[in-house]
């Protein structure tokens, strides 16, 4: 096991090891019977060379005689061979939104928390001997399009990959979903979308539909910064607010009425996202960052909230 003390961005080194230990007791939950690939920790629905017994069947020409169960054959006076469940690996993809809105307010640490969630869930996948893919968008020219890892010993490389994206630019989620589909190459698995989802409804609808229609199990984790829960404290002067990604401007005045309207708009947006996820049988979790003590909140979210909603489960 490599030195993982500095694995997370928001969790202190001394709390990393206990957090990982508690994580190792969990695994990603698959609500569908998915077709995996290669060898892994998941029991396949297909017979193979696994350790777990599946059934007896009649001997057929060509079967390995080492698989003949002699006791059963003697009892029924007919040759039977023993078959086993095949162990298989699953495809997991963790997409991280690194647009400018994720880093606009540094105090919120939205990108760091999203990175830590991605690392945490990726670590779980690696512990299950699944293939874990990581991708970010928007990317700089120097950032690789994705990073694939199947060995948890390389988990620090996941951290390095995610930290390479400093944040900036404008997110195009449908385009990012297309890239994910290309990377999956038809394999089934889970896709975790980590973003603030501060863009138009049409964009996330298209992306999620695209992923689900290709048989991928999708989880949406919305990271909301503390500053986004209300209008900024700028007095009662009329000001112009500028969108950090699109540059679009709007002249507003912060009053009690506009604060109320803002909260309503925000609630509506979240409700529509949640409703859409439920309708698509997509896991949805919303993580509102606290003003302080991010690591406790993060641990609470990963170790309690995600298992509580069924996205994670204890090891069997």
């Amino acid at each position: 096991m490599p030195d993982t003390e500095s694995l997370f961005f928001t969790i202190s080194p001394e709390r990393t090891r206990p957090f990982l230990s508690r994580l190792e007791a969990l695994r990603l939950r698959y609500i569908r019977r998915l077709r995996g690939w290669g060898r892994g920790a998941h029991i396949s629905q297909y017979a193979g060379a696994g350790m777990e017994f599946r059934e007896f069947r009649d001997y057929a020409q060509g079967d390995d005689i080492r698989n003949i169960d002699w006791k059963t054959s003697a009892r029924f006076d007919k040759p039977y061979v023993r078959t086993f469940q095949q162990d298989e690996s699953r495809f997991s993809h963790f997409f991280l939104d690194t647009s400018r809105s994720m880093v606009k307010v540094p105090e919120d640490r939205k990108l760091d928390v999203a990175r830590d969630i991605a690392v945490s869930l990726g670590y779980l996948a690696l512990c299950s001997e699944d293939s874990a893919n990581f991708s970010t968008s928007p990317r700089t020219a120097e950032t690789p399009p994705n990073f694939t890892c199947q060995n948890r010993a390389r988990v620090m490389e996941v951290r390095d990959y995610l930290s390479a994206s400093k944040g900036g630019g404008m997110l195009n989620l449908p385009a990012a979903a297309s890239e994910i589909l290309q990377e999956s190459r038809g394999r089934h698995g889970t896709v975790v979308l980590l973003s603030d989802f501060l863009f138009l409804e049409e964009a996330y609808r298209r992306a999620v539909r695209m992923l689900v229609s290709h048989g991928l199990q999708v989880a949406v984790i919305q990271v909301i910064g503390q500053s986004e829960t209300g209008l900024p404290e700028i007095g009662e002067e009329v000001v112009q607010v500028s969108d950090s990604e699109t540059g679009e401007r709007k002249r507003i005045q912060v009053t009690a009425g506009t604060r109320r309207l803002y909260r309503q708009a925000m609630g509506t947006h979240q409700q529509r996202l949640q409703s859409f996820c439920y309708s698509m049988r997509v896991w949805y979790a919303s993580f509102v960052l606290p003003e302080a003590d991010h690591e406790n909140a993060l641990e609470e979210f990963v170790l309690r909230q995600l298992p509580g909603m069924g996205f994670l489960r204890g090891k069997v």
Partner: protein
Amino acid sequence: MFATPLAFLWLLPVLPILVILYFVNQETKVFEVPSILHMLALPDSPVPVKQRLRYFLNSPFFWLQLLLIFLLVAALAKPIRDREVRHSVYVIDVTASMQATEEDSQKSGWKKRLSIAIEAARERILDAPSEERIAIIEAGRSLVTHPFTPDKNELMRVLSEIRQTDTASSASESVFAAANMLLPAGGGRIVLLTDSQVSLPASLLKEGLNLEIVSVGTLRPNAAIVALDTPSSLLDPGGKLIARVRSFSPEAMSAKLAVSIDDKEIANSNVALGPMGLKAATFDLGEHSGIARVSLILEDALALDNTGYAALPPRRPLMLLLISARKEIKNFLEKLDSFDLVHVQPDEQPDPMLMPDIVIVEGVTDTFSIHADTIYLTPEFDSESSQMIPDAAGELRSWISDEIYYWEEGHPLIDQVALDNLRPEKIPFLKFGKGVQTVIGGSRAPFVGVYQGGDRKHAICALPIRQMLNNPTAVLLLMRLLEWCNPRGRADANVVETGSAITLSPPDEAKGIRIVNPTGAVKELVLSGGPVVIEETDSAGLYRVEGDGYQEFFIARVSPGESDLSQPAQSTEIVSGEEGKVRGTVKSSFSPWLLIILPCLMLLEWWMFFRRRI
């Protein structure tokens, strides 16, 4: 202080425009947020008036632009202040004597006084403080003034373009001009670089003016041609040229005189001169005609006073037609070299192809014919009717019929008889046609006329012998005609000082004249009758004036005061007043500085603007 304070009126329209632009502008503070997704539902709020006012009053751009406008208007108003600087005027003598050469001790050669003066001025200007404002005056016939400037490169350029002249000037006049330049500036220093003696009236140097005289010459005594003469006599048509040379040296010296006519040397002579001596040298010119130049050849610092000129017209003996039977007259006239005598008996008719200048007739035979292209006669005579025209006006008839008889009667004013009236150009002529013309010589009265045969003009005078012998005025008339046909040479006849105007009287027939100056430059003038005043005589030497059948010359000589024979000035410094205030004031403008600050402020505003946007 502002030179044009009215420029501040520009603020009246400009300032309200700026305020209105800021007031109308609804630009407010900009806050960048992660996303305005949830704010799109909020109502669009107009900016309240109070906030707009507060916005632009708190805006650094507003105040910066206000400052920019104010500075721009202030620059247009031309702010000025008085600054005390030192003023100097360098008066450089560029007159003829400054062409004299001086021994250059450094380069073991010879250098003109003007070059020495310019070099001295250059050194002083280069050593002057950088803020000193210096003007330069070229003191020739006319004062060429270069205005005050602190730019030493410009001053060096002016010094390098100073050219010598052959003219003279007054030192006091140039110092007066320099003082007039300095006094409005509050005073200053005059540096006069000259080789001439300077005597200035005490009133010239007023309070606040310093005068420094820098002498650039040394006394170099030598000789000069002081006079030139061309004497002639009635009986000697050939010319003589007499040059008088004076030595100004306390020691004996010898020089060589050379005479050339139309630039061809025809004679020379050595002249030995005693201390301060005067000597005349005579040259026999014989039949030579043209422009004679007499040059004194000796080692001299200034050659301008070593040349004299004389114009020598062609000379010829007069043809005299004697119609007389009296031998004693014929014998007398035959002895005179000035005449080519043709003798005809009274009962003979002279050859009409003869071209006599003078006809002397006897008895009643007073009609003869001459061959001429054109005959001009005084209007008293009608060649067709051979009669005098009684009522014709004419000075000649008056003179002949009145003055001579008055003289016979012992008129006391005879010495004042205007013999000039006999000059052909003064006589109103009648012109007759071409061919053999019959002219009537009166037995009662003479006549005078001119006729042209071939390319020569002849004066003609027909005198009855009776009158000639009894009337001495007739001899004067003969002499006048002889002189007209053979005008005497003119040595330095028309002499002016360089730079002075000369008046010439070309004939009325001349439509234009060409003036060729000593440097060969030609100037043409169209004449409208009357005398001509020629003012451009700055170069010393011979000026030729030519027109239709007219030739004249005059000589521009340098002023005697410009000779290198005079004692140069002594270097001295005259300080007026106690200290001689040499620091005047100038009005210096700030506008250039404001115009430099303006773009800097604009750059600052742009920088602030872009910095705010980033």
